[in-house]
């Protein structure tokens, strides 16, 4: 790479290549785009990158990204604090928020239990969740586990449910099965089994 680019440009291309979903071609395109940007726009981008690490932290209550100690959702009095949705990652929280249907609060686990990768409950925010449900004010009445319908998601949900049920809280999990717009003919056996299992009366 160094043969083709001046050193600073090579460094920028190489930094872009580290980003998820960015290959050498895309990294080169982004670097050349930035080279053509006006000075002030380049500075604004650099400033955004350097300040994000300093100003964004994890909410002390739900462990979602937050600008302050406590995030906007946790401080919002209009949200139902008796209803707690547990998600694996901040991006899952955003996906639920985008539906506009959920009015409760969240808890972000910062990952899922993945025994094959050596990721156990101790590496996640599960103890904080247990404490939050046990000592919450107002008291949490229902915990909705919104983990992916994967082996890791199932493992995490079963583990968390096992910890929370003895605390006397209602624990539910989001339904899974056929996707909206899906086709029965193309659904696999595993998906259909789950769809039947989680069917509901009309």
């Amino acid at each position, binding site marked *: 790479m160094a043969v083709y680019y001046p050193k600073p440009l090579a460094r920028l291309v190489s930094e872009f290549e580290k980003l*998820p*979903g960015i290959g050498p071609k895309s990294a080169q395109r982004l670097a050349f785009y930035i080279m053509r940007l006006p000075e002030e726009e380049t500075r604004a981008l650099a400033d955004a990158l350097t300040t994000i690490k300093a100003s964004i932290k994890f909410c002390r209550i739900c462990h979602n990204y937050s600008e302050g100690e406590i995030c906007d959702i946790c401080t919002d009095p209009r949200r139902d604090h008796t209803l707690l949705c547990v998600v694996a990652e901040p991006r899952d929280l955003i996906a639920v928020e985008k539906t506009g249907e959920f009015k409760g609060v969240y808890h972000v686990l910062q990952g899922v*239990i993945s*025994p*094959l*990768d*050596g990721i*156990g*409950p*101790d590496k996640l925010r599960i103890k904080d969740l247990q404490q939050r449900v046990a000592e919450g004010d107002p008291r949490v009445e229902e915990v909705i586990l919104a983990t992916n319908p*994967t*082996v*890791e998601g*199932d*493992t995490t949900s*079963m*583990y968390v449910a*096992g910890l929370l049920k003895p605390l006397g809280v209602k624990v539910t999990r989001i339904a899974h099965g056929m*996707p909206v*717009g*899906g086709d029965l003919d*193309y*659904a*696999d*056996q*595993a*998906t259909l*089994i*789950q769809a039947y*299992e989680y069917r509901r009366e009309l």
Partner: protein
Amino acid sequence: MPAYSATAIVLQRRHFSETDNILTLYSPEIGRFSAIAKGARKPISRLSGATELLTCTRFGLASGKSLEIVTQVEVLESFPALRHELPRLAHGLYLADLLNHSVEDHAPSPELFELLRSGLRQLETLSPPELAARWFEVQLLGDLGYAPNLFECSICRAPVPGEFAREERFALSITQGGVLCPVHARPETNEDHSALGTGALRLLQTLEALGLGGSAALAALPAAGPRSLDQARLALRRSLRVHLERDMKSLEFLDSLRNSV
């Protein structure tokens, strides 16, 4: 890009790029190999269910430059009961982890494939599920050529438990390649000796005698006590650790579950 098909169980799955997964598969015809399932993480992907961990699938494959490419899938068995009980699922992942780290790429063994498939089937219903894991471990050690001699003392050749049945002080020695009678067993002082009571010894003997095809008989075995199950577990774990030169990552989670009960 030649196309072909193979039956395989998904041992490992890693995210790759935005929507792809790289799978580690074990097939009776090919052995362990890796394949990429493109778009498998998209919500309406046809591949997602069939490429989930611990699923036995008939794969349509095309040979790529460095990885095989999954082109078609048909789920053969998804072992759904595993996903209802945490200990069953955790043991299922352990079996996959163990097989994944016991074999080389492209070294097919229909026996090992059947061992995994039978182990997962037994895990769905067997109580306690760890009995299926112990059977799997004993049979795996045998298939890898590390079967311990369980029926006579590896030092004095006395039949065990035999006349020592009431003494409860046997051991499994890795360096001696088998069980030791109470005269030679020193589990308190010798790190190589894993303590076994008569119950644990008889359990290991029974599990070995069942053979690779004997998993169906597991449900009919007389119930083993928690002490016997624990001793068998620790002895087999030590044996596998020495022979495979590593501990399985999935054991950490199994241990944490055991400790939390």
